[in-house]
């Protein structure tokens, strides 16, 4: 198992390198010149040429790519064209905010979504099921940012219970987290319901009943672990989504996270900052996928077996 994790971690390196090359190339072909942007419209040709030379922008593609990769290898993400501050520092400040927002949102989404979905599945075609699925449908249909704005209008502007934006104590996090868990909880509820419905008619669940186990134990001990697989698979995607997609919520609530920074950089045409954000998000994404795979292995012994080395597997079959 440990070997598998190490192998997966090593595999992240080529993925990161690939994403750097991809983003770098796209940026290379993008119109717009950082030197002109830094110096402003009044700068002379000469000044611009000088700065370009200094920044290494006149070098050929392959040299610049090599330089970029080398600096990333030293964990140096470069310097923002706009603020002039090192990007490694900027992002290190922002990543915790983004992670906090998305991870708490996902956990809450799971804690509400799964019981809701399971309840709906157990009471299939009864009023409880309809109510549960109506709530989930509303949740999944409502865009997160719109829900966020509605909440700001109600709780921050009308009732003045909570601050409308910014960061600070727990009070500042309530609205953003609520908005970020909305889509997740609704998706989880729907997924939990449909995979539970599948599992509930399977033979081993009937068998668990035939053993005389009370219905509660049948559902939580036998049915749910098996129904969890597709849910976990979805969580991986949801985690990645909420880190990248946290952009909108971070912008609405002015939370200094990676998404907000990315949006800012895009509007400032701060190419090198955009590049760093994309690479960092890519890195977090691959890590999340690894975490998802490990969670699946923890639930399903069949998947775990695939992870452990071939030798052991063969020895067991004999």
């Amino acid at each position, binding site marked *: 198992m440990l070997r598998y994790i190490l192998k997966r971690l090593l595999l992240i390196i080529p993925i990161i390198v690939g994403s750097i090359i991809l983003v770098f190339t796209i940026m290379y072909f993008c119109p717009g010149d950082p030197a002109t942007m830094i110096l402003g419209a009044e700068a002379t040709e000469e000044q611009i040429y000088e700065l370009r030379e200094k920044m290494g922008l006149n070098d050929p593609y392959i040299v610049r790519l090599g330089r970029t990769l080398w600096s990333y290898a030293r964990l140096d993400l470069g310097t923002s064209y706009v603020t002039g501050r090192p990007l490694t520092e900027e992002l290190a400040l922002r990543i915790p905010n983004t992670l906090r927002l998305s991870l708490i949102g996902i956990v809450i989404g799971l804690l509400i979504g799964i019981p809701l979905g399971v309840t709906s599945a157990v009471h299939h*075609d009864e009023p409880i099921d309809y109510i549960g699925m109506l709530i989930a449908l509303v949740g999944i249909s409502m865009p997160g940012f719109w829900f966020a704005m509605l909440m700001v209008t109600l709780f921050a502007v009308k009732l003045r219970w909570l601050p409308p934006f910014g960061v600070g104590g727990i009070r500042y996090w309530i609205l953003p987290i609520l908005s970020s868990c909305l889509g997740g909880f609704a998706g989880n509820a729907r997924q939990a319901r449909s995979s539970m419905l599948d599992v509930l008619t399977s033979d081993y669940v*009937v068998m668990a*009943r*035939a053993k005389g*186990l009370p219905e509660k134990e049948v559902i939580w001990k*036998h049915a749910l672990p*098996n129904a969890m697989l597709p849910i976990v698979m979805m969580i991986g995607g949801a985690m990645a989504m909420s880190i990248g997609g946290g952009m909108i919520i971070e912008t609405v609530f002015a939370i200094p996270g990676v998404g907000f920074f990315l949006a800012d950089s895009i509007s400032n045409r701060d190419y090198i900052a955009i590049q760093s954000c994309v690479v960092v998000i890519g890195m977090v994404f691959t890590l999340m996928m690894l975490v998802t795979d490990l969670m699946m292995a923890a639930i399903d012994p069949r998947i775990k*077996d695939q992870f452990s080395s071939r030798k052991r597997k063969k020895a067991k079959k004999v």
Partner: protein
Amino acid sequence: MSNEKYLEVKNLTVEYVTSEETVYAVNDVSFGIEKGKTLGLVGETGAGKTTIARSILRILPVPPAVVKGGEILLNGKNLMELPESEMCKVRGRDVTMIFQDPMTALNPTMRVGDQIAEVILHHENLSKKEGRKRAEEMLEMVGIPAERYEEYPHQFSGGMKQRVVIAIALACNPDLLLADEPTTALDVTIQAQVLEMMRDLHARKNMTMILITHDLGVVAEMCDDVAIVYGGEIVEMGTLRDIFKHPSHPYTVGLFGALPDLESDRHRLTPIEGLPIDPTLQITGCKFKPRCPYATEECGKAAVQAQELTPGHFCKCLYPRKEVR
């Protein structure tokens, strides 16, 4: 028939109701078994055998299943009227079931041994350690080394999974075992092993058993009494000898006609013409009439009542055959 039946099913009727159609799965079925005996329920796929077994345990999928009526008396106690909490004590301890498909009957995310220990711990007041010990004993009993307790179902072959299912069914020394086609999903050599094991265990534990199958060979080896099921009804019922020597219902006769016989030179078997009836239709009279070579007008007029040909040998036919095989 004598009065000391251990299990008695009276007028059991089960339907599967969906918004599109109603399937009449079990229609007014009555039978009984004496303690320690084995009853074979024989019939085609879809005849309602599994539904009968699952109704006894009350593990039918509700909805769509609806038990329209009937009594199931276990030792004189009507299981149909027991509250769910009491029923949970019956299931897995007094009455257990072996499932048809061992491939799907075990929980893939749970260790094999724990699945056996679970039923023991649930019904008996034992510590976890004792439960584990009993589960290991059960594994050994069905011929699986106890060291494999920690393994998961996907590491077992089909025959071994069926052994585990049997171990679960026998873990609490049940009085009544419902074996739902225990060998159908297994290949022939494993079938023989599993049957041998079941017969051995049956003899040792003095269990009552209902064996559901469509294999008359298995019935001949295992059963004391036989009930032939067609279209959710028991069309003929009697001792093994009654059924095998004096098959009286045309359907039973047809079943035997479709069996290969090693001693004769016939190259072709005699099939029963036609297809099993559509269980969504409500038919008055004999359900076998469309396929029966001896049917008359009279057969379709009213429900055919069972008649007792010889003591204990019942047949639901107006014109029972009288050949001797």
